[in-house]
């Protein structure tokens, strides 16, 4: 269950942003033109961009509530974020990028889950490589794996498949659906109408920072 009402006034060069969402849908898609404020909404949910007021709770856990003075920092929210640009750490190998979230959250090693994610994303051969030596699509697959292995309670995906080919998209989509069915809710930003229709249980249109 995802419940949020977040508002941010116009400042720091950004237009005002407003989103209200109460949903049981496992995958919510945010759609809208470029520059509509979709990424800013994801950042507010992740705790990377402070809202001025509102509330946010995921599966009963309150992460932000301006009335009660609750505002968990990003690192305590357990909200995974797959960015449009992969943002892999250039000083760490692929393997260490993947292990980063588990290490930071003090999670025990789950070899089965790890093997499952690695196989699904087909990144086994990339593990020992430097991130700089990967193609855009490879980087994005590792970034998805990195977010998943941190075992987030909510996964935010900002056009995660824009740099993947159709074959890889087709492979990853069922996994995202399965992951959602297993209980990891997702908010998914995409321009691709087919992708949205295939994945999302609910679609929210965003325009000029207002979601409806």
């Amino acid at each position, binding site marked *: 269950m995802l419940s949020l009402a977040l508002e941010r006034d116009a400042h720091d060069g950004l237009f005002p942003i407003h989103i209200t969402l109460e949903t049981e849908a496992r995958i919510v898609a945010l759609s809208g033109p470029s520059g509509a404020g979709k990424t800013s909404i994801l950042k507010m949910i992740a705790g*990377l961009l402070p809202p001025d007021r509102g509330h946010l709770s995921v599966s009963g856990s309150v992460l932000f509530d301006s009335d009660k003075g609750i505002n968990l920092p990003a690192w305590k929210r357990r909200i995974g*974020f797959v960015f449009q640009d*992969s943002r892999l750490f250039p000083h760490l190998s692929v393997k260490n990028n993947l292990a980063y*979230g588990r290490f*930071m*959250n003090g999670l025990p090693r789950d070899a089965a889950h790890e093997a499952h994610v690695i196989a699904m994303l087909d990144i086994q051969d990339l593990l020992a490589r430097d991130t700089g030596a990967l193609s855009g699509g490879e980087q994005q697959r590792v970034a998805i794996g990195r977010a998943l292995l941190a075992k987030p309670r909510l996964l935010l995906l900002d056009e995660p498949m824009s740099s993947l080919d159709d074959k890889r998209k087709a492979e990853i989509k069922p996994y995202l659906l399965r992951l959602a069915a297993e209980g990891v809710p997702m908010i998914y930003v995409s321009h691709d109408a087919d992708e949205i229709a295939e994945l999302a249980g609910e679609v929210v249109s965003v325009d000029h920072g207002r979601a409806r």
Partner: protein
Amino acid sequence: MMEWLSLSPQEWQAVGISVKVAFWGTLASLPIGIALAFLLSRKRFPGRALLDALVHLPLVLPPVVTGYILLMVMGRKGVVGEFLATHFGIVFSFRWTGAALAAAIMGLPLMVRAIRLSFDAVHRRHEEAAATLGASPVMVFLTVSLPLAWPGIMAGAILCFAKALGEFGATITFVSAIPGETETISAAIYAALQTPDGETNVMRLALVSIAISFAALLAAQAMTRKNRSRQGGL
């Protein structure tokens, strides 16, 4: 023919003191330099411009004035120096440790500038990604910002070392030039210049000084290049 190039024991001593003073001065100022650079690069706070100016003050102040201030503050009768000597037995004035302190203060602006540029170049987006993966601000700093800025930090340390190696004005004002204790290469060159027929000694020490400084600058440049290529990687 090349005999004039070999250093006398006293000259070796001056080279040794210079390297010791520059090494410890750099090492001691490194954590402070990193903290100041990070603060100035990432944080907005009241008094930031003042702190920035204070860090850079030794760069524009006559070194003798810096030495005099050190004498007033850290000397045996100085505000802090007397306290440290009475309660902890730590004495800086007329000791090589005082020379290291003077060198550290004179090298700090160069160090902070280089490290700050390096922190400026570390993409915030990597730090944001680390936070969404559960890294606390301290862990983001230790596991992302610091390693990515590392070549710049090394370049800053080398620049500080080179500056410390050539320090003269603040050092001689604060700790004088006591052979075997505080007489550095620069002080030895100055002393040799005052001595009749000291030109050969001056030339020898000058060559050593040029060699060490040149090597340090080349190392700093190599580090900066490495930093640039790393930052451009992703």
